[in-house]
């Protein structure tokens, strides 16, 4: 009888495993076609950890996450062993009674203090410096950074490049035209003449990038997992974020904040290229839209 009682849960567990095993085939029946762009990076079938890191600074974040998870697993396993041991050793059985006297154990106090100290170390020693580095230490002009403005809208990313002059043109909502002028560039501003807007983000490797992130409508979140970068795009605010790609390849940019019904499809391609490829691309882009603008006006 007792065996029967415990059989059912085991069967249920087995059933879950079987179903999980059988079902991915079903899921792939009509997967959306994302093969137009080959994305770099190895993921495997059932990945359990972080995506590849192609940035210069991302290892700070990764180190912290690694340390934290080792710490968490150690604590949990240690805790769990004591827990299970207690459950087995002190189970109610004939001849065994509980001890009224409370244990005067010092160990938990020391352990708690140790945990608190370690948390303080994580906070002051690891998290704060990393945060200060990725938030405050924007690359200076001496580092020769790329400047890009990121303008989010439902449901696309617009990457606004300053062109060869390195200066952004003025933008204002009144110039906006969803077909010809998605950012609302002021045609009378000479700085904007060679500005161009792209739906793909192209960047040269081994140069820091300073992005200024904003949104036209609702809150989005600019996330590049392989770059360990994430920043909300808040309408009415322009927030600077920098990162430093080190490896060429094609990657994905995601929206991480719910922004409406097509939030799931708000994906952009990030192409990390060599400096010469990048220059060629800029050359080509700066030409195209400018002519287009003149014809249009």
């Amino acid at each position, binding site marked *: 009888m007792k065996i029967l*009682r*415990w059989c059912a*849960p085991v069967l*249920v567990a087995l*059933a*879950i495993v079987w179903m999980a095993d059988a079902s991915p085939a079903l899921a792939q029946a009509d997967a*959306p076609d994302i093969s137009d762009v080959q994305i770099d*990076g190895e993921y495997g079938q059932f*990945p*359990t950890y972080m*995506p590849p890191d192609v940035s210069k600074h991302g290892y700070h974040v990764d180190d*912290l*996450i690694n340390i934290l998870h080792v*710490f968490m697993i150690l*604590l*949990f396993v240690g805790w*769990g062993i004591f827990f299970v041991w*207690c459950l087995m050793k*002190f189970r*109610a059985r004939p001849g065994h*009674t*509980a*001890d*009224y006297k*409370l*244990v005067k*154990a010092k160990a938990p106090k020391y352990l708690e203090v140790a945990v608190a100290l370690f948390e303080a170390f*994580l*906070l002051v020693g*690891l*998290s*704060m410096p990393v*945060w200060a580095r990725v*938030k405050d230490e924007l690359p200076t002009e001496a580092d020769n950074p790329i400047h890009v403005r990121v303008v989010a809208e*439902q449901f696309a990313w617009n990457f606004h490049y300053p062109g060869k002059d390195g200066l952004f043109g003025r933008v204002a*909502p009144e110039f906006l035209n*969803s077909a010809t002028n998605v950012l609302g560039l002021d045609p009378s501003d000479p700085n904007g003449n060679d500005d161009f807007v792209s739906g793909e983000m192209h960047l040269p490797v081994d140069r820091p990038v300073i992005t200024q992130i904003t949104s036209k*409508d*609702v*809150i989005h979140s600019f*996330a590049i*997992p392989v770059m*360990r*970068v*994430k*920043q*909300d795009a808040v*309408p*009415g*605010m322009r927030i600077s974020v920098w990162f430093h790609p080190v490896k060429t390849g094609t990657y*994905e940019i*995601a929206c*991480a*904040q*719910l922004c409406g*019904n097509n*939030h*799931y*499809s708000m*994906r952009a391609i990030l192409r990390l290229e060599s400096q010469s490829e990048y220059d060629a691309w800029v050359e080509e882009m700066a030409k195209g839209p400018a002519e287009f603008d003149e014809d249009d006006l």
Partner: protein
Amino acid sequence: MSDHDHSHDQGFLRKYVFSIDHKVIGVQYAVTALVFLFFGFCLMMMMRWQLAYPGQSMPVLGELLPSLFGKEWAETNMGGGVMSPDLYNSLGAMHGTIMIFLGVVPLIVGGFGNYVMPLQIGAPDMSFPKLNMMSYWVYFMGGMIMLASFFAPGGAANSGWTSYAPLSVTATQGQTWWLVGMIFLITSSLLGSVNFIVTIFHLRAKGMTMFRMPFFVWAQLVTAFLLLLAFPPLEAAGALQLMDRVAGTSFFMPQGLVVSGVVQEYAGGGSPLLWQHLFWFLAHPEVYVLILPAFGIITEIIAANTRKPIWGYRTMVYSVVFLGFTSFIVWAHHMFITGMGTSISAFFATTTMIISIPSVILLTCLLITLYRGSIRFNTAMLFALSFLPMFAIGGLTGLPLGLPASDIALHDTYYIIGHFHYVVAPGTIFAAFAGVYFWFPKVTGRMMSETLGKLHWITSLIAINVVFMPMFFQGLAGISRRLYDQRLYSWGDAMQGWTVVSSWGAWALGLAQIFFILNFFLSIKFGRKASANPWDATTLEWSAPSPPPHGNFAKVPTVHREPYEYSVPGMSKDYFPQNVSEA
């Protein structure tokens, strides 16, 4: 007139529907909340189908729902039985709202708090019985408004349970219903919390000093203060958002918004982040509203089933009060990536690390209580025991989210879903199940089936881990939350296997609840008759008859000692109830 004189000749309506007896109201709360919990869970099971098999028509519901809601609805929301992204977002927002505000809080505060707390302090009823009744009915109306919002044009609220502006301001009409519903729910919890605090301060039986109160009562007291002080700012924020939506103000709308190519006519000058600050000022204490009563419940159960006093009762009380205070100054750790400066994030990260310490203390005290106990493994205890490791996982995974640097990678990914669900689902909801199994004999006078209960426990425990454990892997891989179809991303596509596993876990969890539902209803009718004190427990509620009559105690109890005097040496029995004067 006194209710005592009339308790026998009240009509059905006064006795069971518009009752002012805290026990009836408690049961009303608990049953309504359980129904809402199940409903919210069903929404989630529908979402899990879309996640596991995107673009495939839903079995059964794919045909049932269109016939229920009509053709027009089906075309926009469920073409060919496949849920639309709008519907998916609605389900997500309503799952969160229903689970938190209509399910868990009403169950553990409104239900258990109302039923058990006055009994545990030896009170005849709550201080303001009519207010108590009103708070239930206001809650009920708020719930009905939330349910009705599914029929609103454009469907229910679809901007997430957090309702971030400007998305929520420009959203469909369901959001207005959501806001009105929330104002009802907030009013209800205000009335309830005033009542709880006054009752705990004023209606304790003779001898029931503050430090003789069972820990559950302490947890309810702190929770009531959190509800009292944290909810009004959300009410204010709700009023502002309602104005934005209805009266065209622009509190959360900055200048020059362009939605789908159209320049919006808002006057501008508002701040989208203001909503987040006001919202999280409530919603962080709300997290503790979810977890503290759960701690209260399992403390009662662990004490009764280890047959030994709680280790560090006073420490736990201080911790819980400290938690209550600190929970008001950690809210912005939900907003690290909104563009927050270094010093502000350092402040909120520090308070977040500080607030983790009392939680660790609570967990440690309960763990050490097991040491040298005599542990009985009944269903209530099994649920209470599994709360401990599950809450530990939830709490530990909070660490990388509380540190701003690691939060960069994990924010708004599945990791956070895994984290808070471990706290709330196998945490709080398991505690709630434990509470149901523990106090069921008191409420109905009958025991629940242990066999069905244990089946329910083991299946739920396995299934719930199958649901939530993969979310940590997905989160670490960087998959954004709230994606209708994650396969559009290469890493999401690679992760689809885990999503399917998680979905099957969810459906298995749904099936496991059949054991509970069967047990619940069958035991009301056929359960073994329970004595007044079936668990040989010490607190006052077990000195009242099962079920307690109107007015609770035949004779007003006098309290002589601390709440958890188990296995006192030299006694013939291994428990020493609080109201018994001599051995």
